[in-house]
């Protein structure tokens, strides 16, 4: 069975779960698949604004779970891609409004009509996280190359294994090649060695991500952005393509070497 229900989680907040969800979902939809993304961060929803769909919300996830609307009514069609949908989180409720079994039921219904389902998990290790991973075929853990984010990622990877949802795959976000070169930032190799998980993508730091969020247009739609390319590569890897890890050469071949090492160590 192919893995079509993908949950993006992190442990620590603010490392890029929502941005990653929006971009991977958009990239999969650009390739023509029918994609539904779900904001599981009840009470602190944000996937709607990152996708630029905040003005179109009528019903939300909790409305579906509590039977106030049908699933279809809560699916907001994307402005740009007719095969991309968002189910927003409720903003005025809390995480206990939904249970892991509610999520499994809802996703089972969605599986019949979508090729990909992406779930944006809340930060933390509480109910919201458990809701988000309960229906997952594959869990992506996203981290920055910072000590606190890596530590929390390790915790979450352990919990994913304990819930028998492993092995998780790692997204290393906001990497600054220049800082790694100066040995002032953990390298991809360092993070992979510490966490002992398989990589699925490295996203370089890119100012354009903030611009794209300001506009509500995912960065993958910007053909020139390095971060956009890195997110498209993750989508391609999920689709089963063998994509070499992009060489993030900023001035010399340093990152070519790192990515070759990862490529060799990975698949």
């Amino acid at each position, binding site marked *: 069975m192919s893995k079509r229900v993908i949950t993006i989680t992190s442990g620590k907040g603010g490392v890029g779960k929502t941005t990653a969800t929006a971009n991977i979902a958009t990239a999969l939809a650009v390739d023509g698949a029918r994609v539904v993304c779900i904001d599981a961060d009840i009470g602190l929803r944000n996937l709607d604004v990152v996708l630029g769909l905040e003005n179109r919300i009528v019903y939300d996830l909790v409305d579906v779970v509590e039977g106030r609307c049908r699933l279809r009514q809560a699916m907001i069609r994307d402005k740009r891609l007719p095969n991309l949908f968002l189910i927003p989180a409720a903003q005025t409720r809390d995480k206990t409004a939904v249970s892991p079994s509610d999520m499994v039921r809802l996703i089972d219904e969605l599986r019949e009509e979508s090729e990909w389902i992406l779930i944006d998990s809340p930060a933390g290790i509480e109910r919201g996280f458990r809701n988000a991973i309960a229906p997952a075929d594959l869990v992506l853990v996203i981290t920055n190359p*910072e*000590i606190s984010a890596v530590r929390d990622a*390790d915790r979450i990877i*352990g919990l994913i294994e304990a819930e028998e949802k492993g092995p998780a795959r790692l997204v290393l976000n906001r990497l600054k090649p220049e800082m790694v070169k100066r040995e002032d930032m953990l390298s991809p190799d360092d993070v992979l060695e510490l966490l002992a998980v398989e990589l699925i993508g490295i996203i370089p730091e890119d100012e354009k991500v903030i611009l794209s969020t300001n506009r509500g247009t995912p960065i993958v739609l910007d053909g020139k952005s390095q971060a956009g390319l890195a997110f498209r590569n993750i989508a391609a890897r999920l689709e089963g393509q063998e994509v070499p890890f992009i060489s993030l050469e900023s001035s010399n071949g340093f990152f070519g070497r790192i990515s070759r090492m990862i490529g060799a160590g990975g698949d």
Partner: protein
Amino acid sequence: MSTFFDRILGREKSSAQQAKDRLKLVLIHDRIDMNPGTMELLKDELIEVISRHVEIDPNAVHIEMNQDGRQQRLIADIPLNPTSRRRSRKRV
């Protein structure tokens, strides 16, 4: 921590290396849900139990946590004193 020579030469470990070293230790304790203090207690008790049966030099004992993938291992290297071997042979 930087070595004596690093300090003499005015070199310190890179901040990335420091982060990696610190994380290594933190993750070990996070994964087994045991804080460093409890770990020291465990080592002391282990030494005590072993020295009840054989003679060992507590200063030569090395007990440490090792990472093998996502699996943690407690590795104990405990050299036994020759005298204890002689004594146990006599008893037999």
